[in-house]
C-alpha cells in the first residue's frame, strides 16, 4: 500500500516538476509548482511527518505560492520570449545536470543499497507535540533567530515595495 502511494505521488511530483520547468507561461509554472508541493506533502505523510505535511500545504503552497501568483498577475508577465544570451548556460547545463543526477544517484545507492523500507506509521515522532517540543527546547535559539529573520524580511520587503508607491 505504501509503495503504491509513493509511486503515484512520486510520479506526480516528477511530472509536475517537469511542467514547472517546461511551461512557458509563469502562471502555468506556478500551478505546477503547487502540484509538486501537494504531492510532496503526501510523501511527507508517508515518512511520518504529519505536522510538516500540514505546514507544507498551509504555508508553502498556501501562502508562498499565492504570493508568487500575486506578483505574476501584478507584473502581467506574459509568456517567455526566445533570447540569445547566456548560450553557455544552456550548452553546459545539460551535461552538468545529467552529471549531477548520476552522481547523486550513484552516491545514494552506494550508501543505502538495500535499505529499510518506508512504512507509514513506523515513525511516530513527527507529531505536532514532538516537533513543537523540539522547536522550543533544543532549537530555541534558531527558532528565535528565524523569527528575527522573518521580521527583517518583512521590513526589507516593505522598504523595497514602499519606493514603488512614490
Amino acid at each position, binding site marked *: 500500500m505504501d509503495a503504491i502511494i509513493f509511486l503515484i505521488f512520486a510520479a506526480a511530483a516528477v511530472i509536475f516538476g517537469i511542467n514547472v520547468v517546461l511551461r512557458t507561461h509563469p502562471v502555468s509554472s506556478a500551478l505546477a509548482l503547487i502540484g509538486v508541493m501537494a504531492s510532496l506533502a503526501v510523501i511527507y505523510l508517508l515518512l511520518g511527518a504529519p505536522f510538516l505535511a500540514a505546514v507544507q500545504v498551509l504555508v508553502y503552497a498556501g501562502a508562498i505560492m499565492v504570493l508568487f501568483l500575486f506578483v505574476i498577475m501584478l507584473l502581467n508577465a506574459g509568456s517567455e520570449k526566445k533570447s540569445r544570451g*547566456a548560450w*553557455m548556460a544552456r550548452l553546459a547545463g545539460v551535461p552538468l545536470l545529467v*552529471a549531477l543526477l548520476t*552522481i547523486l544517484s*550513484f*552516491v545514494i545507492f552506494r550508501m543505502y543499497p538495500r535499505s529499510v523500507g518506508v512504512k507509514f506509521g513506523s515513525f511516530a515522532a513527527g507529531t505536532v507535540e514532538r516537533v513543537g517540543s523540539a522547536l522550543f527546547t533544543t532549537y530555541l535559539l534558531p527558532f528565535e533567530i528565524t523569527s528575527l529573520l522573518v521580521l527583517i524580511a518583512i521590513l526589507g520587503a516593505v522598504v523595497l515595495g514602499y519606493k514603488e508607491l512614490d
Partner: protein
Amino acid sequence: MEQQLWIIPALPLAGFLVNGLLGRRLPKAAVTAVAITSVALSFLWVLKTVTGLMPLDAAYVERYFDWIRVGSLRIGCDLMMDRLTAVMVLVVTGVGLLIHIYAAGYMAHDTGYARFFAYLNLFMFFMLTLVLAANYLLMFVGWEGVGLCSYLLIGFWFLRKSATNAGNKAFIVNRVGDFGFSLAIFLLVINFNTLDFGEVFAKLSGWPVENTVGTLTLVGLLLLLGATGKSAQVPLYVWLPDAMEGPTPVSALIHAATMVTAGVYMVARTAPLYLKAPMALEMVALIGLVTAFFAATIGLVQNDIKKVFAYSTVSQLGYMFLGVGTGAFAAGIFHLVTHAFFKALLFLGAGSVIHALSGEQDLRIMGGLRKKTPWTFWTLACASVSIAGVPFTAGFFSKDEILVAAYHHAPWMYWVGTLAAGMTAFYVFRAFFLAFFGEYRGEGHPHESPAVMTLPLAALALLSLAGGFIPVPGWLEPLFGAPSAHHNPVLVAVSVSFGLAGIFLAWLFYVARPELPGALATRFSGIYRTVLNKYYVDEIYNAAIVKPVVEGSRSLLWKGIDVELIDASVNGIAARARGVGDMLRRMQSGYIRNYAAWVLLGAVVLMLAIGGTR
C-alpha cells in the same frame, strides 16, 4: 671612569640639541649663551681632565659600552686621553671657543643665527669624538660627522647655488677619501681582529718592518687616501678653496684649525703602524711636500682674500704631512697647533676685513685699511709674521722643526720646502699689503669690527707670537719614540732668509712698485693665467671623472637599467595583471544563468571530490 671624558663632547652636543630644536624660539642672547657656554665648559672640563691626568705617561682609556660584538671581535664605545689627544682637544676647544665668540659678532645680522650655532656645536661634538676616540671605528664616526657638518656649514647660505655646489663638492670628494679609510678599517679587522688603538699597536710589535708593499703598507696607504680627502692634500684638495663659500668663522674653525687637521692627527695616531711601513710613510711625506709647493704657487696670484688663505691652508697642511711623513710626528703636530693659531687668526682677520668692507672679498678693491681698522691690522700682522716664519714667532719654531727633519730625511725635500716657505711669506704679505696699505680702492665705508670680534683676534695674535714657546714637541716626543731632529742653525738661517726674502718681494711688488705685478702678469700671461685658474685641475677632474660618471649614470644606469629594465618589469607585471584581469572580467557576463551554470559546475566537482573519497 673618574675623569668622565664623555662630558667633553657631550657639552657641545647638548648645545646643538638646545639650539637646534629650540633655537628659533629663543632670543638671540640665549642662543649665543648656550652655544658659547657649552664650548667654554667643554674647554674647562678638558683643562680639568688633562691636569687631573698629568703627567699622562700612559694612555688613559674609558670604556663605556660594547658597540659591536661579533664572534671574537669587540668594538667598544671607548674614549681615551693621552698626550697627543690632550694637545688636540686643547686646540679644538680652545681655538673653537675663541671662534665661537667671534662668530657671535660676525653672524649677528644673519637670519639663520640659531641654525649656525647649532651646526657649529654639532661640529664640535663630532670633532671631539674624532679626537677622543679610542678605536678606529669611533674615530671614523667623528670623521664622517665632521664631514657632514662641513657640508652643512659650507652650504649654510643655501640659497646661493655656488654655496650648495661647494657643499656637495666637499662631501663627495671627502667620500672618496672615506672609501680608503673604510678599506683600511676592513684590513685592520681582518689582520688584527680589533680596531682599538692600544690593541692594534700592541699586536704590531710582532710584525716585521715591511720593505715591500705588504699589508701594513696597504693599510697605511689607504689611511693616507682618507687623510688626503679630509685634509685636502693632492689629489683630493679641490674642495677646500670652494669651501670658502661658507661663512668666515666656518672657514676658520673647520677649514683651518680643526677638521682639516684630522688627517694629520690620524697619521700621527697611527705612527706605530707607519713606522713599520716606511713606503707608506714616504708617500705621506711626498704628498705633503708636493701639496705644500703646489698650493703655494696657486696662492701667489689669487685675488680673493679667502682663497689666498685657503690655498695657504692646503699648503700648510702639506707641511704637516711632510713633518709626520719624515718621522717627525711631534713636529708635525706642533705645526698643527701653531697653524691653528695663526691660520684661524688669518681667517678671522679676513672676516673682520670683509665685515669692515660690508662683504667685499676681492683684494684688488681693498687698501688703506691700516688706519681704518687698527685692531684688525695689528692682529693680522702678528699672524702674517708667524706664518712667514719670522724668528721666534710660533710659526718659525714649528716650520723649522719640520724643515730640519725633512733635511735629515732627504735634503732635496728641505730645499723644496724652503722654497715653498718663501712663497708662503710672499703671498701672505701680498694679501696683507694689498689690504692694509696704499689707498682705499673701493666704494664702501670701512669701519672697525666690534669688540666681540676683535678680542678673539687679539687672543689669537698673542698665541701666534708666543705659542712657539709652548714645549709641545718635547712633550709629545716620548709618545712617538722618534728622536728629535737635531737643531742645525745653518738650515734655520737659510729658511728664515727665504722667508724674509718673500716678505721683501711682497713689499716691493705691492707697496714700493705696485706696477710690477701687472707688468709681470702680462709678460708671462700664459703661466699667469694657468696658475690663476688653479692649473685647471677642477676642469680636468670635471672632464675626466665627473662628466663620465654623470653621463654614464644617466645613460646606462638611469635610462638603461632603471627605466627600461626595472621600471619595465614592474610596469610589465602590472600590465600583465591588468591583462589577466581583462580576460577574467569577460566571465562577468551579467547573465544570472551563466553564474548558475558555474555554481552547478562547482557543485558537481565538489560532489565528485567528496564522493570519490568514499
